[in-house]
């Protein structure tokens, strides 16, 4: 197996995730896209870990997973608050910082 196939797969996922972050209106969907990105990164890490026959890749992948979990938790809490305050989690309506 080529290393590149995993890397390219990860890159693809990453770009899809980017697209999702940029293009989705719903806050939750944005968070989902962020998950895609994180997963892409994870794939990268593990692939390189396997490539170098070291366990470090996995370790860091585990860390990323943990952080992703934390991030989703907090993120959803925020989305909830937004929903409570505005009755909508449409990100295009959240433009209070508009200049």
């Amino acid at each position, binding site marked *: 197996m080529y290393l590149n196939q995993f890397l390219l797969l990860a890159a693809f996922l990453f770009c899809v995730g980017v697209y999702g*972050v*940029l293009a989705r209106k719903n806050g939750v969907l944005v968070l989902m896209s962020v998950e895609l990105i994180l997963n892409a990164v994870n794939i990268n890490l593990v692939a390189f870990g396997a490539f170098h026959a070291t366990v470090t890749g996995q370790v860091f992948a585990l860390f990323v997973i943990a952080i992703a979990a934390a991030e989703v938790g907090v993120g959803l809490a925020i989305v909830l608050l937004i929903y409570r305050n505005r009755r909508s989690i449409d*990100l*295009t309506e*959240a*433009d*209070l*910082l*508009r*200049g």
Partner: protein
Amino acid sequence: MLRNAWIIPALPVASFVVILFFGRRLPRQGHEVGLAAVGLAFVLSLVAAAQWVDRPATLVVEGPAAEGAAEGHATLEAAPAPAGGGHGEPGAEAGAEGEAGEGEHEVEPIRAPVEREVTWYQNGPVTVRAGTHMDGLAVAMVVVVSLVSLLVHVFSTSYMHDDRRYTHFFAALSLFTAGMLIMVTSSNTLQLLFGWEMMGVCSFMLIGHWWEEKNNSDAALKAFFTTRTGDVGLLIGISILFFGAGRTFNIEAINTAALSGGMSEAVLVAGAAALLCAVIGKSAQFPLHTWLPDAMAGPTPVSALIHAATMVVAGVYLVARLYGVFWAAFDIGEGGVNPVALFGGITVLIAAALAFVQSDIKKVLAYSTVSQLGYMVMALGVGAWTAGVFHLFTHAFFKALLFLGAGSVSHAVHGFDMKKDMGGLRRAMPTTFATFMIGTVALAGIPPLAGFWSKDEILLGAGENGYGLFLLVGLVGAVMTAAYMTRCVYLTFFGSYRGHGHPHESPPAITVPLLVLAGLSVVAGFLNAPGIAKFGEWTENATVLMAGVAHHEFSVGTAAVGTLVGLAGIALGFAYYWRNLGPHRLTDRSAGARAGYRFLANKYYLDVLYTDKVVGSIKGPIARAAYWTNQKVLDGVVNAAGAMARVAGRFVYDVVDQKVVDGLVNGAGAGAEESGGALQVLQTGRLQQYAAFLFGAVVVLGGALVLFA
């Protein structure tokens, strides 16, 4: 005293200061200080004169190349003093200090002058000195001035009694005396100018002593302005001669430079012409003589001192002192006509003519003074230096005598008009009459009185030096002088009394000076009589000898002619007045005579010319033109500059400040605002848009890296 001659002028200066500050508080209102100072000055001047006479003649002066000095110099002593005669005085000389000049040179040695100077100030290479230069001429002048001043002081104590400004009068008299003494003893032209101007100021003060009456203040102003017009010439002349003589003000140096060819012809003539203007102004020569008769508005003692004996002769003294300059500039030795003699001669005649139509006794004497000043200037102009100076000397005595006599008369009758206030006073005022007669005869030039000797010398000089025209002028002038004085005497002392008062003889304070002067008028002439000729010996200085002024033998013929014309004048007067011969009341009968009389009465319309035409045209059109120029042109320029500044300011404000500067500032703000507004579009507040930019930037950078790295 010759070395300390500065004391002589210093005394009247001190007395001026003392009288000015303390005069009122003194028991005699300050006249005692004045009298004491001038009296002491006179004594010291006599001492100086004695010292001068005693001085050994050690200075040998070379005359000019060919003609050499004298023919028959019977007047100078040949015996010299032992060389280096114990005095060691510094003096300016032009020839070798000599031992006995017996037969070796033709010139006889003269007394070396005593010059003593201190440095006044230094200005670069030029050092200006102040000091005294005592020679025979200076000594003679000092004696005359201090004597006449003393007598006038004595006279004034009675004449000016109860005057409204008695103390001030004496202060001014002291200051005047000081000024004249400074002038005659000065060693350089700058100091001479100083004394000259001091006298001008004092003359103004004294003529206008009773300035409350407009006549008097007008007369004072006229005198001042007219002499001032001439004084411009003095200043210019001094400056020209300063440069011409190699940057020195010293009179000896200037004379030497002038006679030895050190100055170029143009400089010499320019300097002499300028100085001549000053002489014409101060010594009342034609055409600037108009101030002197008007100056009679001042008190009579003032007229006697200033306008007869001392100040007016300052011009004559100037010529005599700087004779080298005049001699060289106008070639006086050549004969014919020269400006100096010309002005003098014209003055002699026109003033004498005017004296005939005056009814104010002082005015007669004033014109007589002008005429006699003309004689002096003419004498210097025809090369009779000693004659001119000697006439100055004798004239001072008998003219002062005449003026004081007129003062005595007017004091008695309280008026000056001969026709209205006087007449037949010889019985009421015998002393005054006698002394006045002596003065008249002296003035007319009848031997053996003083006037004869001096006038005769003038005529001799004119005739022998090749100035025949001026000899004629002198003779005609003598006739006229005698005639108008006879008229004056007749109208004043003879006939019947036409006034309203009770005239009586004046007190001794007035008559004693008259007697003294009368005595001097009799004997002073003998000082230079042929055979004695001491005056010439004592006063002729290095300049005169260097110039080569000629000396002449006494000519019986000239003397006889001179006497005859004088007697003729008296006879004419006698015939006209005593015997009633001649064309009486001619003006009633003849229109021509009337016109002539009017011409004379209006003083040849010179006053009209000066006041109305010259001054008037300056006051009128020229002043108006100057005012117009000032208002329209100068003010116009200034106002225009101001208006332009305003316009420029407005422009700067409106355009530069408001539009450009404010525009820039506001523009910067507006630009910031606009760009902010433009950039505001980016600030949607939408998170995803920011994220889009972020990733987009990453893409671009990454792409760039990939492509170019």
